[in-house]
């Protein structure tokens, strides 16, 4: 049994497997299938200052080796989270991380401030990359000044571990990652969904109510791996890699490309037990390769120059 512990800045995780925001509810949805206490961390749904109804149905389209979603941050708002949900989930022996979204900087700040008071939330994931909301969201994640404005404002009020989730819909993701590092983020997570679209040829209509939506699943894994590698070569703070991870081999590819930990998203829909299988698979890989700690894999890609 190898050592699976990893450190995301000051935050220690018992293993490097987290669940991706918006794909794992509040964890409870999976309690019948797995022991939630075995996870390295649970990143809960995108949470905003105020209640949001999200986008109209239809919100989903299946695509080759992936899916599009247009949920649009449906959630009951941070106060509801604190009052009703937090008490139910705070006892999990996994890091509970809240994914924070907003349309204006002030909303991000207010939400982060409220979450800062919660003992059992050691970190927030700042979602500056959601493609499914009209205002804000992705706009912050696709320009350096935009990213800077929200990260620096949140950093001022949030003393916990600050993870910034980056958008892949940019020319140069390393540049945005650098901004996050410079503004004091403890880590970056990448990638959020790629902006995509689906069309129904027979009805001649878009499949999603919002026309475009976020692409996730194995289809995007090559892009995610590339971005993790680019960011790894540009910054020093830890990287949490995600995008299309379906099994332990995929996870290990992300570690090699530079990730310290990984998140599993869409795969949970296909196999609600996938997270545990990935944890076990990583352990098996480490044993088979005679590695003592998963940390040895981070950025260990052998590149012949």
């Amino acid at each position, binding site marked *: 049994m190898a050592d699976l512990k990893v450190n995301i800045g000051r935050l220690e995780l018992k293993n490097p497997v987290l669940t991706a925001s918006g794909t794992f509810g509040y964890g409870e949805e999976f309690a019948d299938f797995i022991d939630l206490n075995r996870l390295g961390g649970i990143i809960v749904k995108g949470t905003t200052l105020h209640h949001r109804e999200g986008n109209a149905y239809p919100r989903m389209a299946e695509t080759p080796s*992936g899916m599009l979603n247009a949920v649009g941050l449906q959630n009951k708002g941070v106060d509801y989270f604190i009052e009703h949900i937090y008490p139910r989930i705070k006892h999990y022996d996994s890091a509970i991380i809240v994914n924070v979204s907003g349309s204006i900087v002030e909303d991000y700040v207010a939400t982060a401030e409220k979450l800062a008071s919660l003992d059992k939330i050691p970190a927030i994931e700042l979602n500056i990359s959601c493609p499914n909301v009209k205002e804000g969201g992705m706009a912050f994640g696709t320009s350096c000044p935009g990213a800077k404005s929200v990260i620096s404002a949140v950093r001022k009020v949030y003393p916990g571990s600050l993870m910034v989730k980056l958008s892949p819909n940019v020319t140069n993701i390393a540049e945005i990652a650098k901004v996050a590092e410079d503004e004091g983020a403890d880590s970056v997570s990448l990638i959020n969904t790629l902006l995509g679209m689906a069309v129904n040829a027979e009805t001649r209509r878009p499949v999603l109510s919002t026309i475009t939506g976020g692409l996730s699943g194995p289809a995007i894994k090559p892009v995610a791996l590339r971005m993790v590698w680019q960011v790894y070569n540009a910054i020093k703070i830890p990287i949490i890699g995600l995008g299309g991870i379906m099994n332990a081999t995929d996870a290990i590819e992300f570690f090699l490309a530079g990730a310290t930990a990984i998140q599993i998203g869409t795969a949970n829909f296909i196999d609600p037990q996938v997270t545990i299988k990935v944890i076990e698979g990583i352990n098996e890989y480490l044993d088979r390769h005679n590695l003592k700690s998963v940390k040895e894999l981070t950025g260990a890609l052998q590149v012949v120059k």
Partner: protein
Amino acid sequence: MKKYIKDLQVVNKQILSAEYYLLELSSNQPLPEVLPGQFAEVEITGSDATFLRRPLSVHDVDYDKNTISFLVQIVGKGTKHLANIEVGKILNVIFPLGKGFELIKSSENALLIGGGCGIAPLLYLARHLKKQGVKVSTLIGVRRSSQLIELDNYKKYGDVLITTEDGSEGTKGYVVNHPVFENLKQYKKIYTCGPEVMMKAIAKRANESRVDCEVSLENMMACGIGACLCCVTETTEGNKCVCTEGPVFNIHNLKWQI
């Protein structure tokens, strides 16, 4: 209700018509309790064209044989692939999911209306209603008589009424053209599943006659367990997940323009 993820074995496959087939799956452990109206998320093993699981209503459960069955209509890649599965093969299934129908009490009358593949959840419902002493009538609407399947099974639990669009059997027209709609008040409750336009027409008539009515929705789902929020429908209390708050809804809770 506790949800399970299980490898079930195909013990029987029946091709009912060019469009419909029935899969009967058994488990090596006793099957958990399943309520009428609940559904399952079925993995389409070995299909290169599908990515996600597919939601299918529980068509019937036989606790004596320890089998659960699904009635499937071929509409696209996944349902087509599944039609070719062989007896003996394993399917990974997550179930039971969602909330079922609300059963009415003994000696009341229920009208079950299924359009096309919407009859799938009604068999298991009819079985439960009958067991409670409810008098069941099942109205089945199809385009032409060749699409009528499994009538004998439904007849076990009550009358079966039929409409066909081409008039080749039963009343000609849509389900709402059937004479029962002239005296809806005889029913304590209507349960329906089928195309949305059909369910809306029924809901309108039920509403007019002040008869309680539950509909089973078939929204597009990615997870089936309340994790993705893709399957929502607008309700009087805002967007609700069809997979956890439904798939059965009382029409009074939906924001249908009826």
